[in-house]
C-alpha cells in the first residue's frame, strides 16, 4: 500500500509540474481528487476495507497526501494568468534598485590609509583646522620672522588665528596629550594661499609620527616604503632626498617610482620615473624639547603627504579641482 501511495505521488508531481494552463490543472484535480472518479478519493473510500490494525496510520498518510495535492494545485493555479496561461516574466526588465549613494573618493582613500596605519599599530589623532601661530609654526621650530614661513602661504584670520598649513600641529598636540612612546597618524584638511590648475587652497594631508627610544631614519624609510606599497602596489620603490623642513633634522623629501609607468618615464612623472610624494625626517630636538621630551633619550620620525594626490594617482584623476566640484558623474565613479 505504501508503495502504491508513493507511486501515485510521483505521478501527480510529474503531471502538475508540466501543467502550464488552467484547463490542464483542473484536469489533474479531477483525475486525483474528484469525489466520483478521483484516484485518491477511491483510495480513501477503500479505507474501510483495510486491516483495522493498519487503518489509522494509512488514514493519516492518505489525508496528508490529499492536503499536499490540494496545496500544489492551488499554487499552480496562482501562477497562471487571467488568460488561462502562465504569464512569462520579462526578466530583463530593470530591477527596482534604490539609488546608490557614494562616499567621496577622499573619504574612501582616507579610510584605506587609516586602516593601513591602524594595522601597523598607529593611533588616530586629530586637531583643529583653525590654529595658532604657536602650534602651526613656533612649536615646529619656525622662528618668528623666518623665511621658512614663506613657503607655507598662510591664510591668516582675524583674532591672531590662522588656517593650519599642514597637519603637523597635530604632532605637537599629540605629544603634549600622550606619554611616549607615541605612534600616531593625523589626517585632515589643510589650507594654503595658492590656487591654480594643480593647487587648491584647501587640500588634505596625512601626517605620521613615531617617537620612542631608538627610532631611526632607517625606521622612517621602512615605514614609508611599507605604506606606499600597501596603498599603491607591492613592487614600487621609494627614494629619499635631503631637504629642509624646520621641524625635522635630518630632513627629507621622498618620491615613489611612478605608479603609471613603473619608473620607465611618462607624462605624469615628467619622464623622470619618479613622483614627488611628501616630506619627512627625524623629529627636530627643538620640537621634542618644546613638548617636554628629552632628545637625549627619545628620537622620532615624522612624515607628511597629500591625501588628494594619493587619491588622484590611485584613481587616475588628472585635475585636483574635480575633487571639489562634486559632479555626480564623477562621484558615482567611486561606488562604496
Amino acid at each position, binding site marked *: 500500500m505504501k508503495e502504491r501511495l508513493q507511486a501515485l505521488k510521483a505521478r501527480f508531481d510529474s503531471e502538475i509540474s508540466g501543467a502550464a494552463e488552467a484547463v490542464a490543472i483542473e484536469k489533474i484535480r479531477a483525475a486525483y481528487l474528484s469525489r466520483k472518479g478521483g484516484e485518491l478519493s477511491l483510495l480513501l473510500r477503500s479505507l474501510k476495507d483495510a486491516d483495522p490494525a493498519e487503518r489509522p496510520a494509512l488514514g493519516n498518510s492518505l489525508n496528508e497526501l490529499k492536503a499536499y495535492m490540494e496545496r500544489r494545485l492551488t499554487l499552480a493555479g496562482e501562477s497562471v494568468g487571467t488568460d488561462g496561461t502562465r504569464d512569462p516574466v520579462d526578466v530583463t526588465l530593470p530591477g527596482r534598485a534604490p539609488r546608490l549613494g557614494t562616499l567621496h573618493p577622499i573619504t574612501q582613500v582616507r579610510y584605506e590609509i587609516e586602516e593601513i596605519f591602524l594595522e601597523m599599530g598607529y593611533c588616530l589623532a586629530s586637531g583643529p583646522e583653525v590654529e595658532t601661530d604657536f602650534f602651526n609654526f613656533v612649536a615646529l621650530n619656525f622662528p618668528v620672522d623666518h623665511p621658512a614661513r614663506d613657503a607655507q602661504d598662510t591664510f591668516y584670520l582675524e583674532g591672531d588665528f590662522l588656517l593650519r598649513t599642514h597637519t603637523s600641529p597635530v604632532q605637537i598636540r599629540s605629544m603634549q596629550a600622550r606619554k611616549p612612546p607615541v605612534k600616531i597618524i593625523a589626517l585632515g584638511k589643510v589650507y594654503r594661499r595658492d590656487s591654480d590648475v594643480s593647487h587648491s587652497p584647501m587640500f588634505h594631508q596625512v601626517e605620521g609620527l613615531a617617537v620612542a627610544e631608538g627610532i631611526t631614519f632607517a*625606521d622612517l624609510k621602512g615605514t614609508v616604503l611599507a605604506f606606499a606599497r600597501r596603498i599603491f602596489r607591492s613592487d614600487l620603490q621609494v627614494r*629619499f632626498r635631503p631637504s629642509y623642513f624646520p621641524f625635522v633634522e635630518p630632513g627629507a623629501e621622498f618620491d615613489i617610482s611612478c605608479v603609471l609607468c613603473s619608473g620607465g618615464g611618462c607624462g605624469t612623472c615628467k619622464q623622470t620615473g619618479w613622483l614627488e610624494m611628501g616630506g619627512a625626517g627625524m623629529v627636530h630636538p627643538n620640537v621634542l624639547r618644546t613638548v617636554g621630551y628629552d632628545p637625549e633619550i627619545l628620537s622620532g620620525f615624522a612624515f607628511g603627504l597629500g591625501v588628494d594626490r594619493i587619491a588622484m594617482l590611485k584613481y587616475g584623476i588628472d585635475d585636483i579641482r574635480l575633487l571639489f566640484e562634486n*559632479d555626480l558623474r564623477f562621484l558615482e565613479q567611486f561606488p562604496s
Partner: protein
Amino acid sequence: MKFSLDWLKEFVDPGLEAAEVGARLTAVGIPMDSLERVGRDTVFDFDVTSNRPDCMNHLGLARELSVATGRPLKTPSCEIPPSVDLFTAKTSAAVEVEAPELCGRYTARIILGVKVGPSPDWLSGRLSAVGLRPINAVVDATNYVLWEMGHPLHAFDLARLDGRQIRVRRARPQEPLTTLDGIARKLDSETLVIADARRPVAVAGVMGGRDSEISSSTTEVLLESAHFDPASVRRTARKLGLHTDASHRFERGADVEITLPAADRCARLITEVAGGRVLPSVLDRRSAPPSRREIALRPERVCRLLGLEVPKSTMKDLLERLGCGVTDEGASRWRVAVPSFRGDLAQEEDLIEEIARHHGYDRIPTTLPSVFVLPEGRPEAEKRSRRIREAVARSGFAETVTLSLVSASDNETLSEAGPGLKVTNPLSEGQDRLRGTLLPGLLRSLVHNLNHGSSEVRLFETGSIFRAPARKGEMPDEEETISMVCGGKGGLKHWSGPPQPPDLFDVKGAVEVAARSFGLPSPDWRPAHLPFLARGTGAEAAIQGNPVGFIGQAGPAIALAHELDEPAYLAEISLRKLFARLPAGWGPRHHPLVRTPSVSRDLALLLDEDRTYAEVEETIRGVEGIPLVRVTLFDRYRGRPVPPGKVSMAVNLVFQNSGRTLVSGEVKEMLDRIIQRLRDRLGAVPRVN
C-alpha cells in the same frame, strides 16, 4: 634660482655631463627644477631651500658639487692691486654704525677715478645667464660678486653722500626716501637705513636710494659690504612690499666674515671693468663677535640616529670637505668647528644630516620601528562620523567635499550666525570667510549638477563649521556637522511607475536615517521659521527635547543667490549635538522579543486641515493603559470626497500585550477610547468608507 655651468666650472671641474651635475646636487638636497642649453653654456634652475643661503651663489654651489664629486674646489682671488695714493679710505670718507643691534658689521672700500660705462660682454653675459639685466659696469660688478660669492653689496656715488659719510641708523618717523625703483617712501623708526650726514640714502639690506645711485657721471665709489639682522631686513622688506636679491639673502642669514673678502673681490673687479683705483685702508665697523661656532658630535650617535653604520673616517672626511674643522676629544666625542658661512649648522643633528646627505640617503636601510604601542583602534567620535556617513550614503546621497572658504553673504544667506570668521588675506572676495554652515558649498554643487543635466540630485557633506570664539583668548569653535541637499524636477524614471521627484521628505528621511543609525529615536519635528527657508516649510529637529538641526525648502533669497530655478531641500544637523544625545558607551542592545500575537487595526480620520500628523500621533499615544507598539500613517488625502477645509488621515495601529494574547473585545474597547480622545482633543471624526 639660476646657475651657469660655465661659471660653476671656474670653481670646480665636476668632470660630468650637465644632467649628471643636476642629479648629483639633487641627491645631496639641492633639487634641480630644470636645465636649459644657452649657447655653449648650460643654465640650471635649482631650488635652494631657505636654510642654505650659502648655496645661493656659484662658489657655494660649487663647494657642494666638490664634496659630492670629490673634485677640488678653487676660490676666486680677492687680492687688491697695490696702489700708492695720497689718500686712504679713512681720510676720504667716514662710517658710523649707530644701530649696532641691527648692523653687526659695516665694511666699505673707496674706489676713485672710475669711468662708468657698460660692462664688457663676458660680465653682462654671465649676469644675463642667471636672469639679471646688466645696468652699468659698477652695479654689474656688485651683482657679479653677489652671484659669485653670495654677499650683497651696494655701490654709492661718494660725491653725492653729504659730508662724505655713512651713518647706519634707524629712520626717523615719516622720513622720506626715494628708492631705486622710483617710489617715494615714508619710513619709520623700525626701518634701518644707510644715511649720509643729512638724509637716508638706502634702506639697509633691501634697496638703495635714487639720489646716490651710480650714474654715468660717477667717478668716486663707496662700496658697501655689510651684515644686517635677518629678521629686521625681513620685516622691513615685507612692510615696503619689496623682495630683492639682497633682502632674500640677508633674510636667510649672511656671513659676517665675508664682508671684507667680498668688498675686496668687488673693488678689484670694478677697477677691471670701470677703471679707477682702490684706496688703501678699509672702513670696517664691527660689533658682531667673531663667528666661531663649535658643536660636539658623537660619531656613535650618528649611526644610532640613522640606523646605519658609517665609518668614522668617512664622517670626518665629509665634514672636513664641507669646511668644518674636526678635533677629537676622546674616542667617542668630536669637536666640530663650523665655517662662518654655514649659519644653518647649530647642533649635533645638523651635522648628522650633513654626513647622511653626502654619504647618501640611499645607503640607509629600511627597517620598521620595534616599539609596540597599545592599539586604540578608531576613536569613538571617528567611528560615529563614519557610521553616519555610511548610513546617509546608503540612503541614496552622494558625499561631497566643498571648500571651507566662502563669502560673508554665503554665510548670511544660509545661516543665522552672521558673516563668519574673517580671513585677513583672502585669495578672493568670495572666499574671505570661514563657513558657518555647510550649505553654501552643497548648494553650489547641487546647482552645478542640475545645470549639467541631472534630473535628481541628492548630496551630503560632513565637516566642520566655524564660529568666532565666544570669549577673547579662546579658540574659534569648530562644530562637526552633516548637511544634505536634494533637488531636481525629474526624479528617477522607472518602468513600474511614475518618477517621484525629490522633496522635503527625502532630506527629512535622511535625517531620520542618520539618527536611527545610532539606535536613536526619529527626532521630534516642530514647525520653525528660518528666514532663508520658504515660508511654511521649515522644521526644527529635536531629540529628547534638545534641538539638533533643521530642514526646509530653500527660500527666495537662496534661489536668487544661487541662481536656482527648481525647488531645493536642505537639512543641517549638528553632529556634536546629535552625538551628545547618545548615552556613554553606546552600542546596540538586545531587548527580549515579545512572543504574544499582535493585533492590527486601521483607523481613518477626518480632521480640520490645519491639524498636523504629530498632533494625531501624540494624542493617540497619550491615551493611558493601551499596549500600543506602533503607529504608522499610511494615507493622507485632501479633495473629493473629503469636504473642503478638511483632511483625511489614515493610521495603522498595532496592539500587543507582552503578558498575554489580547482578545478582540479588549481591542475594540481600546480603539473606542482612542477615537473618543481624538474627537475630544482634535475634533477628529472617524471616517467610514
